């Protein structure tokens, strides 16, 4: 057998994905944890380094490509999904990740985000959500809570915020997940699941901005409170949360959901079993929306992973192949002479 003669394959390591560029985020920024998680996950995906492309827009999060030793493209504000779509259309074989923020993806680039998701382009989107504009030094963002006092809203913001997860599910994204910068193990696991998804994967990463919005997600990350406020989703498992894992989500007869206390005749078997693979988005939307209701937890993990829809770039390229199979490869001389012609002698 010839395998003995092949050069040994050196597995890639986290170091292979680090660049020589000085990382210029503020000390203590949540972005460091996300960078570290991505650099740890990439070598485990079995993909050659040269086949990774990291694309970003503008904002603190969008400096990401400079720190990843892959092909990288730091584009303009909000347009990363569109640039990435062009890359994927021409090179479906590449592994394209977009690093973006709440302003970049949901405000100036909201249109591109939803259209990329509805097309199901095979791009992984990491949305760093710190609920603030950091790079422009502290204005409210489209995910900032109502009545947020910032530099541009000294009397409080009057905008209702987007829920990024609801928005992505509303656009019928085929993979929608949420993780948190400081939950490293959960974040890495979520990134791996996103990487395994063929179509568009949308991952919201709750991230702290310790300069302009410190404690952005305090109620979810603070050690004592987190189990009460966060519900970790796992496909096929019942929806349970609480410090003592004693609370759950149950369907009501009208189709809505409610929080119930386990015990007193209510068992795990009465709870909703998480089905991330459901072809329709309505259940995932219901989950995504519960955090806005009093007493309900914030779900993290994979809300939706339905991978039966073909990728946009594959459909595009297949259509071209089909036409070539039917008509034969184009003949330029024939094309230029198409239609009615006449000869002058």
């Amino acid at each position, binding site marked *: 057998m010839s395998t003995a003669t092949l050069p040994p394959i050196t597995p890639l390591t986290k170091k292979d994905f680090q*660049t020589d*560029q000085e990382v210029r985020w503020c000390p203590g920024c949540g972005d460091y944890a996300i960078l570290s998680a991505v650099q740890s996950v990439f070598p485990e995906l079995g993909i*050659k*380094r*040269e*086949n990774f*492309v990291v*694309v970003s827009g*503008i904002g603190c999060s969008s400096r990401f*490509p*400079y720190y990843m*030793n*892959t*092909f*990288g*493209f*730091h*584009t*303009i*504000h909000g*347009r990363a999904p*569109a*640039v*990435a*779509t*062009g*890359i*994927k*259309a*021409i*090179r479906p*074989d*590449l592994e394209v990740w977009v690093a973006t923020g709440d302003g970049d993806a949901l405000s100036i680039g909201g*249109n*591109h985000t939803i*259209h990329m998701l509805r097309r199901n382009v095979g791009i992984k989107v990491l949305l760093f959500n710190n609920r603030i504009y950091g790079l422009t030094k502290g204005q409210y963002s489209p995910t900032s809570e109502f009545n947020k006092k910032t530099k541009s809203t000294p009397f409080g913001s009057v905008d209702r915020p987007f829920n990024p997860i609801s928005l992505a599910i509303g656009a019928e994204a085929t993979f929608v997940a949420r993780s948190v910068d400081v939950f490293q193990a959960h974040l890495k696991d979520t990134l791996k699941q996103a990487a395994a998804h063929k179509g568009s994967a949308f991952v919201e990463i709750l991230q702290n901005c310790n300069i302009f919005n410190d404690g952005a997600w305090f109620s979810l990350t603070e050690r004592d409170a987190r189990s009460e406020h966060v519900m970790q989703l796992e496909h096929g498992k019942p929806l349970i949360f609480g410090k003592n894992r004693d609370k759950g989500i149950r369907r009501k007869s009208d189709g809505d959901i409610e929080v119930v206390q386990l015990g007193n005749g209510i068992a795990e078997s009465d709870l909703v079993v998480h089905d991330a693979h459901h072809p329709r988005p309505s259940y995932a939307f219901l989950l995504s929306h519960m955090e806005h209701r009093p007493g309900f937890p914030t779900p993290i993990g994979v809300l939706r992973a339905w991978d039966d829809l073909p990728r946009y770039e594959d459909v*595009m*390229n297949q*259509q*071209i192949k089909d*036409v*070539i199979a039917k*008509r*034969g*490869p*184009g003949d*330029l*001389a024939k*094309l*230029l*002479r*198409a*239609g*009615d*012609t*006449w*000869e*002058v*002698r």
Partner: protein
Amino acid sequence: MSTITEVPLPKHKREVIDQAVIRFAGDSGDGMQITGSQFTNTVALYGNDIATFPDFPAEIRAPAGTLPGVSGYQLHFASNDVYTPGDAVDVLIAMNPAALKMNVADLKANGILIVNSDAFAANDLRKAQMTSNPLEDHSLDKYRLFSVELERLTKTALEHLGLDAKSISRCKNFFALGMCYWLYNRSMDPTVRWIETKFKNKPLLVEANKLAMKAGYSYCEATEAFQISYEIPPAKLSPGVYRNLSGNQALALGFVTASQKSGLRLFQGSYPITPASDILHELSQYKDFGVMTFQAEDEIAAITSSIGAAYAGALAITTTSGPGMALKTEALGLAVAVEIPLVICDIQRGGPSTGLPTKTEQADLLQALFGRNSEAPIPIIAPATPSDCFWAALEASRIAIKYMVPVIILSDGYLANGAEPWRVPDVAQIPDFPVRFATEPNSPEGYLPYKRNPDTLARPWAVPGTPGLEHRIGGLEKQDVTGNINYEPLNHEHMVRIRAAKVAAVVQEIPDVVPVGDAEGGLLIVAWGSTHGAITAAMNAQRAQGRKIGHVHLRYLNPLPANLGDVLQRYKKVLVPELNMGQLLWVLRAKYLVDAIGLNKIQGRPFKQAELEQKIEEVLGL
């Protein structure tokens, strides 16, 4: 058996002439564009030289019979060279009072006026804001008026087919077309073939349209209405195979050719906009050439997806008009900063804002030159005729790739929709311009994304997926050679200057200008884009009267040809006619300190030959 010898009817007179201008005008729903393009196709196939001017409203169907709903199609065809669609028309076909009112002023005295008299009831006149019936009030006495009951005659010809009244009425344009074929002694065969293809699944409509057209032809034959018919012999074009080509078709074919000649996949990111959408319609048909068309969610995604495709190794283009161009501005700056090949087609229309979507203008020149934040120079190419768009597409693609720059093509609505005969080139004679992507690190330290070719100043093109060439690019200022982010003052000045020097280096590709006409003397006309035909016609007419005039038509607007400054000095006066407020004029005055004079028309319409001649005479002091 009858012994009576049949006396032949007095034959109508057939006159040989060298040119004619015909205009079909009617309601938006009357099929005037189809009628005009069918007549065009037929005379082109016969071998006449042609120029066309389709002129239609932005509304798909303005209220029927009203003035804003009038759609027109003008054709100039001749046995000699044709440069313009013609200032005035010899034959006007008016399908209703509104069409008559909007167009009759352009009909020559004693010109032929064919009117659908069935559309002149009181209500029709009111919709056209007419107080008396022009068919009866002698206001049309200076024309040869032919009132034809198009509605009734078409109905009579088709009533046995069992078609509904609406479908029958919709065939009346082909009755009129048949009349015109008789008038100019043209075969109906090409249109018959077109009808058979167009309605191949609707045999009844094939029959109806053919019958209507033949009825129109026979009507002229039988009634001897015109008493005279015309013959325009074929033009003496250089030998070869010809086809009819509009500017937008030419761009599409040019890009497919550029894709084949460069060996790159063609990617078009585009958002529908008048008058550029036809390029998308054309290219979306050419999937057998591997062409990938992407109808983006907006103008910005159209260009940024194209930038992504170029980054991934495609020949990428984006096509738009002025308002879309405005939206693409920031992304154009990105393409300049990351030094990536890209071709942007701006099919100019009247502005500002939404302006005149279907009308032509040349007012985006300064936008193309300067319409980006900071110093962001971009080469600009302006085709002069519809078929020149083919060569402009090829040239822009070649320069974009060779210099790693975005290149703008400035076409306009007149070129986009206008058509002319095109001698189909021999594909083998068009040179290849193969692309060499970077495959190896270009220095001992590894791959340096901004290490430049000393002749072109182009940086290498390393596409994702190439092992060992992983690198980062972006819109932030970077250090030359390494591409690392760098905000140092002198580095920024160096980068601004080198990006400008690269665009300036494109002058190597540009031939020196050689004025057409007189090489020196009283007047030099400098212009660009779609005004070429009208200026040529005007200059020829003026030179025939002994005036010393030269004409430089700039194909490259940035950089400008190296010898342009010298050429400007050889003439006493410089005239710059433009369909704008004087944008090239502004550039020439600023760059060459020349006291040039503008002729500026901003009416959404091309120049007339007479307007140009009048200005030439005025400038020459005649």
